[in-house]
């Protein structure tokens, strides 16, 4: 699909003949075209009647926005036409060897989503704030995990152990918060647990030069085994004492929480979510705007060069991998203290791997990885919302959708994602 057509144009009139390589990328038009056809099949051939209502405010909002009704047939068919137009525009751009701009893809995605929601919920009401609040909740551990992954990989240590760090954080935060009845203590315990998992990752990959992917995979198994063993042996017989952590209350931020739509979504959350906002901003700022971040990235890109200018490569790696573990462990606490309220066997259920996918999807950039994590969270929440209001699509296919979309996005739009150059390679000072 990625045929790079090179054509040479020689100009005879000009004294200097410049060779220009024309690179046409056909992946975006193909991906957009496939989804446009999919939309056509759903919206037109499996078209539905009635009206879908989008509710924009919750009952407790100060400023009430009116609900928006949408006539299903009219809206979906219009959107289907626009989708084809965008796909055609993308093709036209590709012919002229111009990249399809990102905003066009974003518009396309939003339109597709609106069309799909309208179609799927025909005759029902979709609570937009509820949909988005759930998204933030489901994304939170993914975002923490992805931030940990970004930090660790940027400094040159592949972090496949995100799942283990999340699970360790969830377990220890549940136990410590139950014993102390202090959720804050649980958070600190989760951070320590994440750091401990990272210590093992760092020690084995930096000191013993073991393949980092191997250590990561094995650590996941180790933490899964340990927490499940201790859960069966200790936590479930003594659930009162060891596995009934208090949950964080929701802390609405005054004023901000009254902003329509955004307020309930972003500013009526638990303290862990607020920490998450700070963490995303802090990681981004630190990574790209500070000396520390520059050193970190240089160690991950070219450790030899970093060493030459006097940076201690292995020490930088060790402590930053530990920091990454702390962030991921904190995300684990969200499972027990933020959402569920008790630890359960393998309760992270692959979130660490999704976070890993978000890291790669987001091209090792904290902001993009966060957006990717939000996408995953949104998709899985969309499924649960649609299954409540009853959608014509079998729930399994709704559950499948985010993963299929990711495959298409990774194959069609992201393409080759290149990580930090020295990620995964041990550094031995010569």
């Amino acid at each position: 699909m990625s045929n790079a057509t090179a054509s040479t144009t020689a100009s005879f009139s000009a004294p200097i003949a410049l060779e220009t390589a024309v690179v046409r990328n056909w992946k975006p038009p193909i991906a957009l075209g496939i989804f446009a056809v999919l939309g056509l099949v759903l919206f037109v051939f499996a078209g539905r009647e009635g009206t879908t209502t989008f509710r924009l405010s919750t009952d407790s909002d100060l400023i009430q926005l009116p609900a928006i009704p949408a006539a299903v047939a009219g809206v979906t068919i219009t959107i289907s036409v626009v989708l084809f137009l965008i796909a055609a525009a993308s093709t036209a751009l590709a012919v002229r060897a111009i990249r399809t701009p990102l905003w066009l893809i974003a518009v396309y995605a939003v339109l597709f989503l609106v069309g799909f929601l309208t179609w799927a919920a025909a005759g029902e009401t979709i609570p937009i704030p509820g949909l988005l609040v759930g998204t933030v909740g489901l994304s939170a551990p993914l975002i923490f995990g992805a931030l940990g992954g970004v930090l660790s990989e940027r400094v040159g240590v592949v972090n496949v152990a995100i799942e283990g760090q999340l699970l360790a954080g969830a377990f220890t935060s549940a136990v410590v918060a139950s014993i102390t009845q202090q959720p804050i203590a649980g958070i600190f315990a989760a951070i320590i647990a994440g750091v401990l998992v990272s210590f093992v990752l760092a020690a084995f990959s930096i000191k013993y030069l073991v393949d980092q992917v191997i250590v990561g995979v094995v650590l996941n198994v180790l933490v899964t085994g340990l927490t499940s063993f201790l859960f069966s042996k200790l936590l479930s017989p003594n659930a009162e004492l060891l596995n009934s952590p208090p949950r964080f209350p929701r802390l609405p931020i005054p004023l901000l929480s009254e902003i329509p739509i955004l307020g309930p979504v972003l500013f009526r959350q638990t303290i862990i979510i607020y920490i998450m906002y700070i963490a995303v901003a802090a990681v981004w700022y630190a990574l790209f705007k500070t000396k520390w971040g520059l050193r970190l990235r240089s160690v991950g890109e070219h450790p030899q060069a970093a060493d030459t200018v006097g940076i201690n490569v292995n020490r930088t790696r060790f402590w930053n991998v530990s920091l990454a573990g702390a962030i991921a462990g904190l995300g684990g606490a969200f499972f027990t203290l933020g959402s569920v309220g008790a630890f359960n066997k393998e309760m992270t259920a692959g979130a660490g791997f999704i976070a890993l996918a978000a890291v790669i999807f987001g091209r090792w950039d904290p902001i993009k990885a966060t957006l990717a994590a939000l996408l995953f969270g949104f998709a899985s929440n969309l499924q649960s919302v649609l299954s409540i209001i009853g959608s014509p699509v079998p729930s399994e296919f709704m559950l499948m959708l985010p993963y299929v979309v990711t495959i298409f996005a990774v194959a069609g739009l992201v393409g080759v994602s290149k990580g930090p150059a020295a990620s995964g390679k041990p550094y031995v000072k010569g």
Partner: protein
Amino acid sequence: MSDAQIPAKGQPEIALAPGQIPGAQEPETRTSQFMRDLLGGNAMISVLAVILALVAGAVLIAVTDEDVHASLGYFFSRPADFFVAIWESVSGAYVSLFQGSIYNFRRPTFADGIRPLTETLTFATPLIAAGLGVAVAFRAGLFNIGGRGQMLVAAGAAGYVGFAWELPFGIHLIVAVIAGMLAGALWGGIAGLLKARTGAHEVIVTIMLNYVGFYLISFLLRTPGALQAPGSSNPKSPAILPTAVFPELFGPKYNLHLGFVFAILATIFVWYLINRSNLGFQFKAVGENPNAARVAGMNVKNVYLVAMLISGALIGLAGTAQVLGTVTTGFTQGIDAGIGFDAITVALLGRSRPIGVFVAGVLFGALKAGGYSMQAAQGIPIDIVLVVQSLIVLFIAAPPLVRAIFRLPVPGHTGVARAAALTGKKAVVTK
């Protein structure tokens, strides 16, 4: 722990003694040289790694045992009770682990006593097949985390052929196995194709395909006319027809089925593929350095696709063995039983070498079989097997750690090889 001293600590093990020239070790007697290699060599490290992991498991068992807790309460008046309690909890656990996985002395006849060993091999069958699949991908530099999806899709295909088609004995079985392997290859091949064509990272694609496969099979299992048993409302398939069921190798008394023979054949096939065939050489070349392989004229994209196809087919064999051999009365969406992920550890423990994967698969099969008997007899959760498994892989992956714990000598030749390997690695980084 400060990392400042880490390289310094590691140095003496790697570096040769001052003035010692590589290979110039004539003054040393052959016997002592042999002892050094034996004590510090790979085989010894593997054995010690298993012992270390079992010791760690023992600590875990003792720490969480209730009798031990009780005896700790009056430790100072009767300390012996404490140690007796530890001994009883740990020895009880490991005796039942042994009796559940290798030989049960409590049974009167040899035929009964050896039954646990056949259980071990039954558990090992899918682990070996899937482990080989992961190993083949590893060799080509690909990380196939998609074992779960590939196994599920393969189980669905093989199961469908197994219960829905009516074919004569023998042919039915072969067709079902081929269907399963093809389905696995298809699922793995998607990741390979996307990697080759668009550069999509195979880790993402295989993880995503795990979920897609899981929900696909879940949907089919609750859809009448697809995989769901007729007249049932449970998400479960009907029983496999007798003509497609893997025959038991040693009669109905033992669960060990034909799948184990397939696992052995797969091991031989992968050995040939990796060590003797042109394709295997290309796999290794691409796995080591895709750019160099491309310069050497190899079709790297093709290698990615073929490697994932073969990897998926082997993991598909594991899924097939599950439905046609182990669980023949109809399967659910949990048929993969976590083998897709266990396979990664099996491949790592076997260092992606076919024979190594086979041995690792049998070892993990033994731990699994024994783990169940330990859970039944001693009330120790089966999850401890995961702990022991992962610790074994960790220790084996870090020989210096094991040597440091047991104060073993560094084998002479290995030291030189290691130093050379390290310089080689540095060269890569330098570039």
